[in-house]
């Protein structure tokens, strides 16, 4: 089982600290969301510029048992990955994976590191299926999901409304955790020497 906090080194040598999100991170988390470009914020589920909403998402829920991991660089949150597993019901064996990385830290391997951590947590929870929801007009996000082993399984028409009022389709990307095992092993190997855990 993963122990936190832990420091990982990215491909370019930069170090980030990973640990679960804590109640005391409210303001740091809000600052992180505020730092995201409007373009990245527009596809978040809630208006994270309002600290009340950021607080709400950190509160415990009867319905969902979330796992949230944050990455810090120089004391600032630069990414968050989360799993959202229903506590009961017909989707109790599934979890939604969400990941947000600050622009400065994109394409540096941090997303892969967070994904590997999320995968380990999902395995620990005996989750059978992971899924992610991606707007259909976000080809980069769709491509990354596919590289991680997800495949587009269902398109929900007009399921997302942008702040400008435009309706867009959402793609449900899914992966069987068992099928994913080999891909994650490959991923970890490519990280060796670059994004491996520091000892």
């Amino acid at each position, binding site marked *: 089982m993963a122990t936190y906090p832990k420091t990982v080194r990215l491909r370019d040598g930069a170090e980030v600290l990973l640990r679960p999100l804590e109640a005391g991170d409210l303001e740091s988390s809000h600052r992180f969301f505020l730092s995201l470009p409007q373009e990245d914020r527009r596809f978040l589920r809630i208006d994270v510029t309002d600290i009340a909403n950021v607080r709400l998402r950190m509160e415990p829920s*009867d319905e969902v048992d979330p796992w949230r991991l944050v990455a810090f660089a120089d004391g600032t949150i630069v990414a968050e990955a989360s799993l959202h597993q229903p506590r009961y*019901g017909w*989707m109790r064996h599934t979890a939604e994976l969400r990941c947000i990385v600050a622009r400065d830290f994109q394409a540096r391997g941090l997303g892969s590191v967070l994904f590997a951590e999320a995968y380990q947590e999902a395995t620990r929870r005996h989750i059978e299926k992971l899924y992610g929801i991606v707007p259909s007009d976000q080809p980069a996000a769709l491509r990354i999901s596919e590289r991680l082993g997800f495949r587009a399984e*269902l398109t*929900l028409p*007009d*399921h997302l409304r942008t702040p400008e009022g435009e309706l867009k389709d959402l793609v449900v990307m*899914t992966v069987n955790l068992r099928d994913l095992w080999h891909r994650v092993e490959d991923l970890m190997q490519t990280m060796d020497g670059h994004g491996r855990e520091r000892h």
Partner: protein
Amino acid sequence: MSNRYPRVFKCGNGKVVAVRPLAPDDLFPLLEFFARLPAEDRLHLRVDVTDRDIVERRMRPPSHWNVLRLVALCGERIVAEATIEHAAHGFSAHVGEIRVIVAPDFRRTGLAGYLCRQLLAHGAVENLEKIEVRLMRDQPAGQRFFEKLGFQEDGLLRGFVKDIEGKNHDLLVMSLRT
């Protein structure tokens, strides 16, 4: 909304039911309604409705969800339950989801259709633009029912839902533009 209810509906089996929003003291009649459903039907529901704790918890929806849960009562007995819910805010707040469960002796009486029309009318008041329904793939009667109401199949998620016995089923998603 409250002044719309209670409403009275005469079912095709000759019985008259009162339809109104679920009230906090409906827990026991609701549990009894679920307990009397055939085991095969309970298998297809999204939660184990024989678990009092879960049923009770679901009577208190989270604050960020707008939920209308209607019950149809024949005398003191709940004979159907119908729900529409949508996120209070966020990028899918214009999408509602509906569910309808009817006791076997009140099926094919027009009650399910009546309840759905009530839910869709509520959706219109809430300015919802899309209504979704999620079913296990192996519920052809439910699928036909929603098709007749104008819902279209969006697609399937394979093995995405698990019944209370632990068996995986495909999840069928259907939707209706309002």
